[in-house]
């Protein structure tokens, strides 16, 4: 059988990176007690606005277009789109105390609509495929380390053969883990997610923490959508191209037991599961069954967690509940 393990690892990491962003963002959000089911919508918005930024910049700058600038602009545009989307969510659920599940789903409907709309509109304006110049594409998708380092056997391809986003995704998740677990800010944020009334009594500004975590988290999730569009989808907008990515990210949050460190390997594992049917086709396993494995595994993890009742594995206790100070 023609099976290349290093190739699989590389592909798994690449496919896992959008998930890593999507999941880390949602972990941050859920740690504050907010369950934002709008990740799918946020990632769509991030994908469309990220591509739009690179596309507009590429057209405006023409020959002089600088890859690094394009990457930065796409990052900012995607992040901003996520911030706006999750700001709507935060305002409705934190300030106006709307139901989180319903608001999140409404945000998913809205966000996928906006993403598809922007993508299709660009396509109509250009009259064909929205695509950026090859040199800009390379800035997004090409490895950042030199050929020499990449050609080190095994270590080179496995560790040093990736694009820029893989490394910042990794750094971001590690930073998030440190902040959540080792700093005062992280402790206070977790307190807000576990028991907002207690946190409030201890003098923590619950509203501020919830807002900041949800908005930052939404921005990070949206960047995941951009990374998907610009690297895996080859910087081309395709209808429904991102569909399902956000839901896998939500599943991964549970699989990771709300810990960013687990997201590091969890995203690679889920990335592998998403492409395994291409890399390791086994005659007796239909391809579609591969695709549901992430969800089945997540459901099993969810069951195990609830059966074993280990306190450090539980979802944030106040997850999904609006906090109404006057009701204490």
């Amino acid at each position, binding site marked *: 059988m023609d099976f290349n393990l290093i190739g699989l690892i590389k592909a798994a990491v690449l496919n896992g990176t959008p998930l890593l962003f999507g999941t880390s963002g949602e972990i941050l959000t859920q740690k504050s007690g907010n*369950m934002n*089911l709008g990740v799918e*919508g946020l990632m769509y918005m991030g994908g469309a606005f990220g591509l739009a930024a690179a596309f507009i910049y590429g057209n405006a700058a023409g020959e002089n277009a600088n890859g690094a600038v394009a990457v930065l602009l796409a990052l900012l545009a995607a992040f901003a789109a996520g911030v706006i989307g999750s700001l*709507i969510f935060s*305002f*409705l659920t934190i*300030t*106006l*105390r*709307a*139901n989180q*599940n*319903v*608001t999140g*789903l*409404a*945000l*998913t*409907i*809205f*966000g*996928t*609509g*906006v993403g*598809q*709309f922007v993508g*299709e*509109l660009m396509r*109509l304006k250009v009259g064909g495929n929205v695509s950026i110049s090859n040199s800009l594409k390379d800035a997004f998708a090409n490895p950042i380390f030199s050929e020499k380092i990449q050609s080190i056997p095994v270590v080179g391809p496995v560790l040093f053969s990736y694009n820029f986003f893989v490394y910042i995704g990794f750094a971001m998740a590690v930073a998030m883990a440190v902040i959540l677990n080792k700093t005062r800010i992280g402790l206070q944020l977790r307190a807000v997610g576990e028991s907002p009334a207690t946190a409030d009594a201890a003098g923590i500004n619950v509203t501020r923490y919830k807002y900041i975590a949800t908005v930052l988290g939404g921005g990070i999730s949206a960047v995941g959508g951009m990374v998907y569009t610009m690297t895996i989808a080859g910087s081309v907008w395709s209808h429904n191209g991102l569909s*399902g990515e956000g*839901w896998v990210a*939500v*599943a991964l949050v*549970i699989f990771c037991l709300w810990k960013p460190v687990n997201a590091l390997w969890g995203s690679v594992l889920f990335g592998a599961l998403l492409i395994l049917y291409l890399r390791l086709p086994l005659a007796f396993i*239909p*391809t*579609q*069954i591969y*695709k*549901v494995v992430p*969800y*089945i595994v*997540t*459901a099993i993890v*969810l*069951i195990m967690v*609830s*059966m074993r009742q280990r306190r450090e594995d539980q*979802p944030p206790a106040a997850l*999904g509940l609006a906090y*109404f100070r*006057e*009701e204490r």
Partner: protein
Amino acid sequence: MNEKTPFIRLAKREDMPKSKVWLIRGGAFVLAILIGCLIFLISDTNPFKAYGTILMGALGKKTGFRQVIKNAVPLLGTALALAPCFRMKYWNIGAEGQITMGAVGASFFALKMYEAMPSPVLLTVMGVTSILFGAFWAIIPALFKSRWGTNETLFTLMMNYIAIGIVGWLQGGPWEGKPGSQIIPLFDEKAVLPKVGGVHIGWIIVLLLTVVMYVYMNYTKHGYEVAVLGESENTAVYAGMNVAKVTIRTAALSGGICGLVGFMLASGTNQTLYSDVAGGAGFTAITVCWLAQLNPFAMIAIAFLLAVLSKGASVLQTSLAIPSSISDILTGIILLCMLGCEFFINYRMIFRGHHEKEAA
């Protein structure tokens, strides 16, 4: 002293007059429409013309109107299914999967057994199977919820994608029509729901179901148990209710109706089965149900409105070259505005320094 009180304080209220409640909701809807105008302006379209096209496209012609009804049926049916779950504060967001599984159950008989029985029997068998399949899919998370407290929101969410994957597998495997096509063949005519007034009979079924659900929720013992459990699990326990039984029964009912919706979609709307058979109705219906405040009759209006939008937007795409995803944007804006406005109905804002007024 004054500086210590926050600028705005909030208090719950339940005494707002009906007229004012509807004024606020109407205001939120108008606001949503105005934001929609902005979106049209940004994309270089005259908003009046755009809204006109949506309304005319959806309601102007008979064929358009039939499509609207077709779109509204699954939304209404699923929203009705979810109402008892949400009253119980059991967050079943697995309607999409329960619809899909119901469609699978119905399709089995439509594809494999259609020769064995006459049409009315076949359709009945399909309906019953779809209810059983949908209920089965909903019972799994409910069992774990009542035994181990497994989070049902996340579990039902996962079940959606497992169901969709199963259909994907059937599509490319055991039930595939032409080898390599990845398509399940069309149902035999015997397995297609008859039409009444140009639309499959499902619309009558969901309208009947609306009345049944209203009675079930408000005038039956089951409905009462669901309401008590939703208000307080402890109260339900003290009152001697079997919490696990009520939870599982309600989830099964909900899943069963979702399954029936799946049957209508597969047999009435598509005449076949494919992985996107639910087409997001399971998710959109959650917002329909919630916005209707779990009132079955209000669901009719909201489901109809959203169906008009989605049909109208598809006309918009063909006549004005605006991507039809605009319907998702408009739907999203309306939902978000309506969700937000409930705050002003349920809470009273008290500004700093207004105590005297309050007292007087």
